[in-house]
C-alpha cells in the first residue's frame, strides 16, 4: 500500500477486501452453466470435415454416403453455407496498409491451412455427425505450402493470394533518434541476438462452443457462446447475416477459460449459425481437442533480430529490433493479426529511458492456422527481447543486472513520459517495484548461494524483468480502426422493492471474478451489504452496451462504470429519502442498506421500507417527486490511448546440465495495477498468468512440419504446466491508482503472462553463462538447451 489514503482505504471498505467469489460456490458443486450443458428441444449437432493439407485445391466433394447415414440431418459445403453471408475482412484502417482477403466459413476451391473447415455435417448426435464426416469423399490437388515466414517473403516465393504481388500482409517501421550514430560510439558496447518465439495457443480447458437458435417468425438469432465480448459478436453476426443488430442476441454464461482465444470470428461457429437458420433447429457445435489445437487462434511465432548498445557506464544508448511474424493465411477478424507485431514495436524497451530506438515489423501470410491475440499480446516477446538484451549487455560490461536497471528505468517522478515509440506513460513505479522485488527475493543472498553452488556443479540462474502492461484501452485500440469493438462499458444499478441492488454490466466473467468485483464496487459506493447484490453479465439482451472483458480492461473500465452508476443511484435514492423524511439529501447517507443521518449515523429509513413506499405506496410521496430507483452510467478512457501498468518479476531456476531440464525454484512478482479491488483475485490473476508465461517459456509450442502439418495436436503431446512442475509464486503490490478514473484501478490479468517468459529466459541464460552457452529460443526445451550446451563441443 503506497498510494495516498483514499476513502476506499477506510476500514471495512469492500474495495480492497479479499471477499470470496459468490459464483465459486455454484461451480464447486457442479452447478455451472457452460454452453455444452445446454439441451434444447430438437437440437442437432455439427461436426466438420477439415482440410488434411496445409495448402490444396479442392478438386471434388462427394457427400452422398454421408447423407445416407441414419441420423444425419444435413451435409453442407461452401456453396450452401457461404452464400448466406457477407464475407469478412480482417483489416483495421489505423493499421495502415494491412491487407487480407475476404473470408467465409467453409473453404471453397482452395484450402489454406490444415484444419480449415470444408464440409459441415449436422446430425442427431455429435457421434453420428463424426461417423458421417468419415464418409465424405474429398479429392485434393496438393499445392506447395508456405510454412516458413522468411521463405514466404522471398522474391521467388509462390504467392498465396493471387490478388497480391507477394505474401506480405503488413509492415511497420519506427525510427526515433539516431540509432546508428549511437551504436557506433566508441564508448558503446553492442550486443546482438536473434530470438525465436514458437507458436503456442490458449488451450482453454472448455473448448470453443456454440449453440445457435434461429426464429424464422421474426428473423432473430440467439448465439449462446463461450466467449468474452458479446456485443462485438452481436455486431459481427448482424453485419454478416445482414440482420438488424437488435435481432441478434448473444449470451455468454459460464466460460471455461478464454484468454483471448474466444474473442474472434471462427468459420465453424458462424457455419453453425447458418445451419441453425437453414434447418430452423437449434444447432450445437463443441470443438473437440484436435479441433481446438488446429483451429483456435495461435499466438507468438516471432523471429526477432535485436541489438542493444550500452555505454561503459551502463546507459542504454540505442535499441533496435526487426520482427518477422507469420500469421497464417488470413488476418483474423475483426481484431486482425497485426496487433501482436504492433504491440512488440510499441513496447520493446518501454520500461527504460531510451532515446534512440528503431523497430521494423513484417507480418507475413503462411499456410498455418491463423494467429491472433492471446493473453498478453506481444508483451512476452517485447519484454523478453529487451530485458534479455539488457542483461546480456550488463554482463558484457561487467555490471550487475539490477544495477543496470537502476540506471535505465524510467524514474518514478519523471511522469508523464512519452516513449521513443510514442507510448504515453503516467503514474508508473518502475523504480519502487524493482527495489521491492530485490528486497522480497533477497537478491544479494541468492547471488551468494548461486556462486557457492556452482562450485559443486549446480547451475542455478536468477533472471529479472521490468515490464509495462497495456490495460484499460481507449477507442484508440480498435474502434478508431473501424472495428465493432466498444472501448466504453456501461453499468445499470437498480434498487428493488426489498432493498436489494441489481447490477448489470457489459464486462464479462471467465473466472477472473468479474461479477465479484462488480458487486464489491457497487456495495461500497452505494452502501449496501454484498449479500444484497445480484450481478448480471454476458447477455446482450439485458446488459448495457459495452466491450466486454479483454486487454485487462474489466476492472478499470467496467468497474468505473459501476462506480459511476452506483454513485448516481445513491444520490437519487437520497433525494427520495430526503423527501420522505422531510430533510435535505446532504444530511443523509446510506450505510449497510439503511439510510442514516450523516451527523450521528442514526437510522432514518431502511432501503426496503423506502423501496416499498416508492413501488407500492406512491401515494405517500409528494406528487412532484418522481422517483427513479435505477441509474445507468458509461465510462471510457479519454486522456490516454491506454492506461499502462508496470511490474517487476524475477525467476530462480536450476538447469540440469546432463538432461537440459529447467526446474523453476521460485518466482517473485511486484505488480502495480493501481487500486486493488480484491487482493485475492488480483493475486490469482497474476499467478495464473505467470504459469501461462512459464508454459510459453519452457513447454508450449504448436509444432508444424515442413508440409504445414501440426504434429502435436493432443493434450498429451502439447505440454502445458502441470501442478508438479510449478513453484509457489510470491506477490507484492505497489498501488499507484490511475487518476484517469475515480476508482483508480488498472488491469492485472495479463501481467504474469507478459513478464514471466523474460524472467525465465534471463534466469536460464544466467545459469548457462559460466558454461559459455546461451539460448534465445522459446520454449526452452531440454533438447534445445542440450544443443546449446554441447553442439560446440567436439
Amino acid at each position: 500500500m503506497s498510494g495516498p489514503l483514499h476513502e476506499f482505504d477506510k476500514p471495512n471498505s469492500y474495495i480492497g477486501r479479499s471477499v470470496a467469489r459468490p459464483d465459486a460456490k455454484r461451480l464447486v458443486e457442479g452447478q455451472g452453466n457452460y454452453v455444452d450443458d445446454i439441451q434444447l428441444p430438437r437440437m442437432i449437432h455439427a461436426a466438420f470435415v477439415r482440410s488434411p493439407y496445409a495448402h490444396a485445391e479442392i478438386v471434388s466433394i462427394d457427400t452422398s454416403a454421408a447423407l445416407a447415414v441414419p441420423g444425419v440431418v444435413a451435409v453442407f459445403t461452401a456453396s450452401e453455407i457461404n452464400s448466406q453471408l457477407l464475407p469478412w475482412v480482417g483489416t483495421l484502417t489505423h493499421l495502415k496498409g494491412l491487407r487480407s482477403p475476404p473470408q467465409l466459413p467453409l473453404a471453397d476451391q482452395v484450402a489454406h491451412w490444415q484444419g480449415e473447415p470444408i464440409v459441415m455435417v449436422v446430425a442427431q448426435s455429435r457421434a453420428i455427425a463424426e461417423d458421417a464426416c468419415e464418409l465424405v469423399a474429398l479429392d485434393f490437388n496438393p499445392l506447395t505450402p508456405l510454412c516458413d515466414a522468411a521463405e514466404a517473403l522471398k522474391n521467388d516465393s509462390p504467392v498465396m493470394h493471387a490478388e497480391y504481388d507477394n505474401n506480405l500482409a503488413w509492415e511497420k517501421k519506427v525510427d526515433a533518434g539516431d540509432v546508428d550514430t549511437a551504436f557506433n560510439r566508441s564508448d558503446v558496447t553492442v550486443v546482438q541476438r536473434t530470438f525465436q518465439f514458437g507458436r503456442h495457443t490458449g488451450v482453454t480447458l472448455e473448448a470453443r462452443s456454440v449453440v445457435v437458435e434461429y426464429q424464422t417468425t421474426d428473423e432473430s438469432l440467439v448465439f449462446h457462446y463461450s466467449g468474452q465480448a458479446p456485443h462485438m459478436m452481436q455486431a459481427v453476426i448482424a453485419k454478416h447475416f445482414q440482420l438488424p443488430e437488435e435481432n441478434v442476441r448473444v449470451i455468454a454464461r459460464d466460460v471455461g477459460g478464454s484468454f483471448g482465444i474466444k474473442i474472434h470470428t471462427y468459420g465453424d461457429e458462424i457455419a453453425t449459425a447458418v445451419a441453425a437458420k437453414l434447418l430452423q433447429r437449434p444447432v450445437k457445435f463443441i470443438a473437440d481437442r484436435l479441433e481446438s489445437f488446429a483451429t483456435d487462434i495461435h499466438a507468438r511465432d516471432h523471429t526477432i533480430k535485436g541489438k542493444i548498445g550500452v555505454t561503459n557506464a551502463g546507459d542504454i544508448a540505442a535499441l533496435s529490433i526487426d520482427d518477422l511474424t507469420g500469421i497464417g493465411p488470413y488476418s483474423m477478424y475483426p481484431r486482425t493479426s497485426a496487433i501482436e507485431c504492433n504491440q512488440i514495436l510499441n513496447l520493446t524497451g518501454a520500461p527504460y529511458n531510451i532515446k534512440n530506438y528503431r523497430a521494423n515489423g513484417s507480418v507475413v501470410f503462411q499456410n498455418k492456422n491463423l494467429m491472433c491475440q492471446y493473453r498478453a499480446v506481444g508483451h512476452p516477446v517485447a519484454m523478453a527481447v529487451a530485458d534479455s538484451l539488457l542483461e546480456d549487455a550488463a554482463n558484457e560490461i561487467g555490471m550487475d543486472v539490477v544495477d543496470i536497471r537502476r540506471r535505465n528505468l524510467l524514474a518514478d517522478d519523471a511522469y508523464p513520459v512519452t516513449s521513443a515509440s510514442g507510448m504515453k506513460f503516467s503514474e508508473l513505479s518502475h523504480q519502487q517495484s524493482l527495489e521491492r522485488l530485490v528486497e522480497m527475493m533477497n537478491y544479494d543472498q541468492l547471488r551468494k548461494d548461486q556462486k557457492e553452488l556452482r562450485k559443486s556443479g549446480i547451475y542455478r540462474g536468477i533472471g529479472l524483468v521490468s515490464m509495462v502492461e497495456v490495460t484499460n484501452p481507449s477507442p484508440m485500440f480498435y474502434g478508431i480502426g473501424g472495428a465493432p469493438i466498444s472501448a466504453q462499458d456501461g453499468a445499470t444499478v437498480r434498487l428493488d422493492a426489498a432493498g436489494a441492488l441489481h447490477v448489470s454490466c457489459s464486462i464479462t466473467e471467465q473466472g477472473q471474478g468479474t461479477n465479484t468485483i462488480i458487486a464489491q464496487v457497487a456495495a461500497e459506493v452505494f452502501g449496501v451489504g454484498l449479500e444484497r447484490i445480484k450481478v448480471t453479465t454476458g447477455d446482450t439482451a439485458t446488459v448495457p452496451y459495452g466491450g466486454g472483458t479483454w486487454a485487462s480492461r474489466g476492472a478499470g473500465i467496467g468497474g468505473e462504470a459501476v462506480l459511476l452508476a452506483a454513485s448516481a443511484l445513491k444520490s437519487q435514492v437520497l433525494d427520495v429519502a430526503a423527501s420522505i423524511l422531510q430533510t435535505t439529501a446532504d444530511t443523509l447517507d446510506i450505510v449497510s442498506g439503511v439510510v442514516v443521518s450523516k451527523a450521528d449515523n442514526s437510522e432514518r429509513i431502511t432501503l426496503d421500507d423506502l423501496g416499498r413506499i416508492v413501488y407500492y405506496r406512491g401515494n405517500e410521496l409528494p406528487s412532484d417527486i418522481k422517483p427513479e430507483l435505477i441509474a445507468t452510467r458509461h465510462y471510457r478512457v479519454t486522456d490516454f490511448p491506454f492506461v499502462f501498468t508496470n511490474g517487476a518479476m524475477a525467476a530462480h531456476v536450476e538447469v540440469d546440465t546432463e538432461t537440459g531440464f529447467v526446474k523453476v525454484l521460485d518466482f517473485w512478482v511486484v505488480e502495480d495495477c493501481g487500486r486493488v479491488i480484491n487482493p485475492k483475485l488480483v493475486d490469482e490473476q497474476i499467478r495464473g498468468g505467470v504459469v501461462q508465461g512459464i508454459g510459453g517459456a519452457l513447454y508450449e509450442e504448436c509444432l508444424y512440419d515442413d508440409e504445414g502439418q501440426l504434429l502435436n495436436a493432443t493434450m498429451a503431446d502439447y505440454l502445458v504446466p502441470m501442478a508438479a512442475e510449478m513453484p509457489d509464486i510470491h506477490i507484492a503490490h505497489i498501488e499507484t491508482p490511475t487518476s484517469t478514473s475515480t476508482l483508480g484501478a488498472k488491469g492485472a490479468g495479463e501481467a504474469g503472462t507478459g513478464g514471466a517468459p523474460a524472467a525465465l529466459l534471463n534466469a536460464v541464460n544466467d545459469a548457462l553463462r559460466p558454461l559459455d552457452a546461451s539460448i534465445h529460443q522459446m520454449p526452452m526445451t531440454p533438447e534445445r538447451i542440450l544443443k546449446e550446451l554441447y553442439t560446440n563441443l567436439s
Partner: protein
Amino acid sequence: MMSDKLDIELIVNGEQIQQSVLVRTNLVDFLRDQVGLTGSHVGCEQGVCGACTVEVDGVMVRGCLMLAVQANGSTVTTIEGFAGNTTGKKLQNAFSEHNALQCGYCTPGMLASSIEYIDRGGSTDRDSIRQHLSGNYCRCTGYQAIVDAVASVIEITDAGINQSEGAST
C-alpha cells in the same frame, strides 16, 4: 445382428438409474447427456486433462476412458454428489474460500483427485499434493490456490483429530 444398445442399471449420487445406452458411449457423456448431470466436464476425451474424473465403486476414474456399459451395476459419484462425502464437502468449501478455481471447468476433476488424496491419508506436504494433482490440468489458477485449499482441509482435519485425542486423555 447384435444391438448397438444395452440396458444398464447403476446408482448415481444415490439415485437408481436404469437406461438404455449405446455401447460406444463413454461414462461421462452418458452422465452428462442421458442422466443430465452436467457437472462433470469433457476436456480432452483421451484421459489426459482429468476434468471428467468421477468416482466409480470407490475408485476415481476418467469418465472419458470408461464406457457407460462398464459401469453397469456400479455406484457412481459425480461432483454433484461430492458434498455427500465429508472430505468432498470440506474441499468444496476450501476451494471456494481459497479461490482454488477460476473458470471452474477443471474443478470436478480437481475435487475428485483431492478427495482421493486426502482420503488415502495424504499429508500437507506441498510437493506431495502437487504430485498427486499432476494428472489434472488447470489453465487458470497456476495451481497454488488449489494446493492451499487441499492443505487447509488436511490441517483442519488433523487439528480436529488432535483436539479430540487431547480431550480424551
